[in-house]
């Protein structure tokens, strides 16, 4: 059977992390599953975790009055979902809903933050990886804003 540690060790997000650091992270991890239509979190709720999606698809939505829910992004196999757990006031900025049956690993935010405070090297390693994801996300958002396929070149 695949252990949490095995899965996390092989995931590109944590690839290359020192074994003791990986063990600290595994201590904050648990397996979760969501049925289609089930919400992982809602805007404004406490952001107490992030997810490594193993299988499935989750849409990140923003509800606009008069327009209904607008999908901003989807995440699927292998993606990381959520960084609001790192930054005070630890609240989700969007809704996230499973589009299909989704299995993920949830990492407890409070547990991680406490370990990062005690071990800054671990905190820095994980922060660097999140910074990369944030940069990719920012690039993607900028491209979306350009409306590339619109009428003007």
């Amino acid at each position, binding site marked *: 059977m695949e252990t949490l540690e095995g899965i996390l060790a092989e995931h590109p997000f944590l690839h290359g992390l020192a074994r003791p650091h990986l063990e600290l992270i595994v201590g904050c991890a648990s397996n979760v599953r969501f049925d289609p239509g089930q919400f992982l979190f809602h805007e404004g709720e406490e952001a107490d975790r992030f997810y490594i999606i193993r299988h499935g698809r989750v849409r990140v939505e923003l509800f606009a009055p008069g327009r209904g829910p607008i*999908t901003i992004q989807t995440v699927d196999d292998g993606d990381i979902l959520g960084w609001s757990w790192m930054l005070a006031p630890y609240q989700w900025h969007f809704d996230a809903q499973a*589009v299909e049956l989704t299995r993920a690993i949830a990492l407890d935010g409070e547990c991680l933050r406490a370990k990062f405070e005690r071990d800054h090297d671990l905190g820095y390693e994980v922060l660097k990886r999140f910074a990369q994801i944030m940069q990719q996300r920012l690039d*993607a958002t900028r491209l*979306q804003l350009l409306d*590339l*396929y*619109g009428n003007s*070149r």
Partner: protein
Amino acid sequence: MATVAETAQRAPVPEPMVPALYQIQKVRRETHDTFTLDIRPQVQGSIPRFAPGQFNMLYAYGTGEVPISISGDPADTARMVHTIRAVGAVSRALCELKPGGVLGVRGPFGSHWPVDESAGADMVLVAGGIGLAPLRPALYRLLAERGRYGRVVLLYGARTPEDILFHRELKQWRAQFDLEVHVTVDRATSKWQGSVGVVTTLIRKASFDPPSTVALVCGPEVMMRFTIGELQRRGLATESIFLSMERNMKCGIGLCGHCQYGPTFICKDGPVYPYPRIAPAFATREI
């Protein structure tokens, strides 16, 4: 002395400058602004052969002439197919043609995707918006000779689910076990069950072996720039990346200079280029 009119009559007209008359066989509405036209010569005659990536100059009589890539199957000898997005006067006039309507055709012109040349490689096709049309002939060709290639991956990004081209075929392609297809849109309501995000985000997860992969990329220039970046991050060699470029055209055969791109003419040296050939121009704003 010869009159001006006589001189004009006698002046040698290069044959590629004379449009052949074609008739509309069938029109398919792909999206609200994009149509696929099947055409054939008005008088009995054979359809010229073309290589995937080449284009024709299509002449809407009374309006004007524009370059449009051939989007059909190179093996199909019964019709010539183009997929056109109505963005201005000429493209709109072409999209308004009905079966039986007549248009002028010059071509096929230009360079082609390196499909035969890439035998043995993994093939990644990255298309954005109308860019799927010029890539479709390459995909037909790859599928017709599927055994000659490693993995074949199609990554396609559209603006919204309603802007997705070739719906029926995409569904067939997705069901094919020897072809990996990923489609994403930039924006969608919750009715859309597929992926939302820009096409470049698909590159990270597609399964291909970067050192032995050839990438064919077609879409808006900004999309192609970011796509190149992602492909290079995955480890693709610069010389394994091919792009199709667009500029306004007049003659289509390298005479007028309208389509100049850096030291090249897109109609003659392109539209398909190996990326290193145009890399300096690609990074220059004014070109």
